[in-house]
Structures are given as C-alpha cells and as structure tokens.
C-alpha cells in the first residue's frame, strides 16, 4: 500500500511539471506588457526598463521558465500587478472560504442525491421515479450561475429570508452559506441522483438481495443495509471525484454570491487583467485538483480490496 502511494506520488511529479510549463506558456503568450499594466501607460521609460530587468522580463523564455519554476516550487506565486499583494498570502485567505463552500455543497448534494436516487430505484418506473429523473436532468441542464440568480431573486430579494451576498460574520454563518451551497451543489445532486439510481438498480437485482427478501427481512432493511451498503463504494468514489470538480462551479457561484473565495479572486483578476494572480490561481487550482483526486484514488483502493494497486 505504501509502495502504491509512493509510486502515485512519483508519477505526479512529471504531470505537475507539465502543468507548470503549460501555465507558464499561457501567461507568456498573453498579449500586452505586464510592466505597463503595473505602472500605467504614461510611466517613465527608465522606470519601465528598470522594472523589466528586475522582473527578468528581458531574459530568454527558458530562463524565465526556470526562475518561475524555482519560485513556484518554493511557494512564491509573485505579487499582484495591481494591488501588489502577495498572491500566496491572498490565496491562503481565500482557499479556506472556497473549501467551506465546497464542503457544504457536497454535504447538501450528497444527502439529496443519494436519497432521491434510492427512492427512484425502489419505485422504479413509477411516476415518482419519472418525475425525480426528469427534475434531475433539468438541473443538470440548468446553468449554475442562472440557478443561483433565481435563488437570490426568490429567497433574498422577494422573501427576504437570506442575505443577497457575502459570507457574513463569524466562521460559520448558515444563512449566508445555504444559497451558495445549494447553487454549487445543484448539478452534482442531480447527477448523483441519476448515478445512485443506476447503481442501486444493479445492486438490488443481485442474488443476495433476493436471499435477504426470501428470509423475510424487512424491505427498508433490505434496501438500506444490504443494498445501499454495497452501492456505497462507487457512490463514494463519484462524490470524491466531484469534490475537486467543484472548483469549476465555485468560480461561477462565488461570482454570483460575492463569496470571498478562490473563484471570485480569479474572476476579479480576469476583469483587471492581473496575470500574476490568474497564473497563481490556475496553478493552485490544478494542484488542489490533482491532490484531491489522488487522495480519492487511495481511499478507493483502501475501501475496495478487489482493486489491485499493481
């Protein structure tokens, strides 16, 4: 097992180097001069030149890449061109907020998704099943940002139950958290409902379920203890794999709800063309994505002894 984890970690190194290289190339290709972004169009030529030398912008591209690599590995993501705030420090503040939102979203969507999926599977082909699956597909087809706006309009602006935006005071403010979490989790809940239904249908057609029923076990026990327990491994994997993907949705959700996290930080940087921040966000986003997926893979192997790690 430890060998498996070590090998996976070693395999990640070339991939992460590739990710860094790609991020560097993209930011290198960006049109316009970063120094002009920092100093403005009317800056003095001498100062511009001094700044260019300081930032090594006149070096050949490969030297720039190696110095970028060197800095990034040491955790230095540079300074914002506009606010001059250290990107690493800013991200350290923002990422826990995104993590909080993602965790709330995954909890809400997992509970809803699994519950709806089980009900659909148990009442297969009934009107309830058809309704649940149609609604699920409708949610999968709805843009996250638009759904968030509908929720804001209904619950914040019309009914006045929740605040329109922000994170509120304190570390945990349910009123502020509920709408963004529902928005971010909506598509995943729908996807999970469909997935749980298909896994449960497979499981409840197995022989051991028939045996349990033949023994006279109560139906609710058959479904929850015998059925769900065996369906849980693939479901847990899908939940884990999607936790990292919530970073995608967080960019849109945080924009709508002015949630002070990673996604909003990135979108604000895009609007201001603050490339140092964009590069830092893209790199950290990929890093989180890779490591969360690795952890999920390892948990998966630990949970299911049938999967070999050779």
């Amino acid at each position, binding site marked *: 097992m430890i060998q498996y984890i070590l090998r996976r970690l070693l395999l990640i190194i*070339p*991939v*992460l180097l*590739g*990710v860094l290289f*790609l*991020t560097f190339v*993209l*930011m290198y*290709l*960006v*049109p316009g001069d970063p120094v002009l972004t920092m100093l403005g169009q009317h800056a003095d030529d001498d100062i511009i030149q001094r700044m260019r030398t300081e930032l090594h912008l006149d070096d050949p591209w490969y030297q720039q890449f190696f110095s970028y690599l060197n800095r990034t590995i040491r955790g230095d993501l540079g300074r914002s061109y506009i606010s001059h705030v250290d990107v690493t420090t800013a991200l350290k503040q923002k990422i826990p907020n995104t993590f909080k939102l993602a965790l709330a979203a995954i909890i809400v969507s997992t509970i809803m998704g699994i519950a709806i999926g089980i009900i659909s599977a148990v009442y297969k082909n009934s009107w309830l099943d058809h309704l649940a699956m149609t609604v699920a*597909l*409708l949610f*999968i*087809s*709805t*843009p*996250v*940002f*638009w759904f968030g*706006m*509908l929720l*804001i*309009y209904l619950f914040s*602006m019309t009914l006045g139950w929740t605040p329109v935006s922000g994170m509120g005071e304190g570390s945990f403010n349910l009123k502020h958290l509920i709408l963004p979490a529902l928005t971010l989790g909506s598509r995943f809940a729908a996807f999970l409902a469909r997935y749980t239904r*298909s896994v449960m*249908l*497979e499981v409840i057609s197995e022989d051991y379920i028939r045996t349990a029923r033949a023994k006279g076990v109560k139906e609710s026990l058959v479904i929850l203890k015998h059925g769900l327990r065996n369906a849980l491994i693939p479901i847990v994997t899908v939940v884990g794999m999607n936790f*990292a*993907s919530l*970073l*995608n949705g967080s*960019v*849109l959700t945080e*924009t*709508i709800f002015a949630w002070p996290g990673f996604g909003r930080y*990135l*979108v604000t940087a*895009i*609007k201001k*063309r603050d*490339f140092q921040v*964009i*590069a830092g*966000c*893209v790199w950290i*986003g*990929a890093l989180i*994505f*890779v490591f969360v997926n690795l952890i999920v893979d390892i948990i998966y192997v630990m949970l299911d002894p049938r999967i070999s790690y050779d």
Partner: protein
Amino acid sequence: MLDFLKKDKIDSNKSSYGMWYDTWRRLRRNRAAVVGLIMVTIFLLVAIFAPLLAPYDPAEINLAAILQPPSSQYWLGTDYYGRDLLSRIIYGSRISISVGVIVQLVSISIGTLMGSLAGYYGGKVDMIIMRLVDIVMSFPSLLLTIAIMVALGPGLYNVFLALGAVWWTKTARIMRSEFIRHRKKEYVEAARALGNNDFVIMYKHILPNCLAPLIITFTMGVASAIMAEASLSFLGLGAQEPTPSWGSIINNGLQYLRTKPWYSLFPGLAIAYTVLGFNLFGDGLRDALDPKMKNN
C-alpha cells in the same frame, strides 16, 4: 444462379444499414429521446429561420425603449440599450449551435487523431500522448479554459479554440481504447496483409468501426459546449457585444435582478431548454447505439 446472387446482394445491403436502422428503431421507442429530438429540432429551426422569426434587428439600439418589461410590443422586454430581448435570444440560438458544433468538431478531430495514434502505435507514441492528456486533465476544465481565453483574448473564435484545446482529451481516451481493441482484429490483419499503409488502415478500416462512441461523444458534447460558452460569456470572456450570446445577456441582466428579473430569466430558460433537449436526445442515442451501456 442469378437469383442466388441477387438474393445475396439484398441480404448484404440489409446488413449494411442494419446498425443505423436498429438504432433508429430503438430511439423511436424511447419517449424521452423523441421529446429530446423534437426539442433539438425546434431549436435548430429557430436558429435557421432566425431572421424570419425575430420581430426586430437584434443589434438595433432604441434609447426610447430602454429596459422595457415584457409587453405586446416587446414580448420578452428590452435590454439596457433598448434592444428587443426576444430577437436577441432568437439570434443567440445561432451562437449556441455554432459553438456546440464547432467546438465538438475541433475537439473530436484533435481527440481522434491523438487517440488513434496512441492506440494504434502504442509504445513511446502512446506514452507521450497520454502524458499530455494527463497534464491537460490535471486542470479543472473551466480553469484551463479561462487561462487559454486570457492568453488568446476574449471573443467567440477563441472560445472554439480554447474549448477544443481542453476537451479533446476525453475523445482521445475513448478512441485510444477503441483502437487498442481493434488493432489486433482479423480485418485489420487482413488489410495489412493486402499491403495497405497505416494511414489507410487507421482511418479507412478502423475508424468507421468506432463511429458509435464518436457520435455519442458529439451529441453529449454539444450540450456541454453550449453550457461552457454561456459560462465564459457570463464571465465576460466569451462572445463580446453586440453579439447576442445567451450567457452575456444573463450577465448584463445580473445588475437589474432586483427590479427587472425577466431580463436574465428568459436567456437562462433558453439555455436550459436547449441543453435539456440535447441531453435527452444524447441519452436516448447512447442507449440506442449501444444497448449494453444502458443505465451505466
């Protein structure tokens, strides 16, 4: 003797369109897929006949009718330039379908080329291509698309490139496994024995046998591309003014959400309708093309 030949010919004809006929038969029996097909057809008709259907020019600015609510004159209201929202949404369907189709053509072409090379040749070629796939897939897809859009600059053509450059990996993985499955088959050996070169074997003999997964990827991908373009335009990175992209109309409406909720409501409904249509149809098509995949 002639009768015998004739009969043989008819039979071989029948089997040559058998797969498509069977697919159509299975598709027709799936009520959800038929609903999806009807929805997609209506969407395509709206896109094709946009100039006939739209009551106004979608770019016509009318400062006397700014932010009008839905009325008999402007069925879905007007935007902050006084442009008719119904006309903009109708023309927006053209943007959506072009994004859906072109992004899929770009990503499927790159993916098929890369996947077929990796699967057919194996070894070092496979290793290099699959590491590239790993790198691209190490990014959350929207984040990488955003990074590419920032590098290329906003605009619809760059959306085609950026989404194509991010999404080819999925097709590459599918085609790689298809080519690995097929490359040792007898018909491929036979084609090689007849002296065909690799190019002919790959794209004339193997590729036509991998069409089903490609068609499924294409149909489902159109829905995802429409959604992704809407998201990029919502962030201000996609189509620029005055192009009537659904995502950017929603974005413009965001600041009027409290007082003019209909502004963003209708373009959102248009996206949901279109994506739902493609998803229903794609689901049904997948089940019909490959009944073994059903429910997975």
